[in-house]
């Protein structure tokens, strides 16, 4: 069964991220939160395409469903400050 940690590993290997969290325990449906400087000044479409590129064939074959939330380091800083994390 595909584990969230396996997806995390593939993304980390192919994409420069400041933070990543992938959740999902049924082996087919996953949710990812990714913070990367590469998302800066990119449209949301482009940000998601960057993630899909990092996943390569995994996206076509193994992952049935992946919900993605992309965040720039600047947005992340604001977010963590506002929630006091």
């Amino acid at each position, binding site marked *: 069964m595909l584990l969230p940690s396996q997806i995390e590993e593939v993304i980390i290997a192919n994409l420069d991220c400041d933070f990543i969290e992938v959740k999902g325990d049924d082996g087919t449906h996953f949710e990812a939160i990714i913070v990367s400087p590469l998302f800066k000044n990119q449209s*949301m*479409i482009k940000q*998601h395409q960057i993630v*899909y590129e990092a996943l390569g064939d995994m*996206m*076509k074959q193994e992952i049935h*469903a*992946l*919900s993605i*939330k992309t965040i720039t380091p600047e947005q992340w800083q604001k977010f963590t400050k506002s929630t006091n994390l």
Partner: protein
Amino acid sequence: MTENLKIKQLIDDNQVLLFMKGNPKFPQCGFSSLACQVLDACGTKYETFDVLQDSDVREGIKIFSNWPTIPQLYIKGEFVGGSDIIKEMYESGELVKLISPA
């Protein structure tokens, strides 16, 4: 190539077009269902194309948009995104603006 032409034609012919699995009454996937719910909430008229009825379009649209998943939303000929983006844009008010500019 012919698939590309067919996809292009579909996109050109429909102001708001959702490529989805199933149809709005009977969506065949949670993400497609979510996309329909969001478009319904926008109060817009939209057309859908069921990719489960046409495997050439199902694979072709992924290459056409450089996007590996379904649903995919096109508004006025432009690719808007998949269900995550559609939902986020709805929540921020951008989607309604895009569909019906004031």
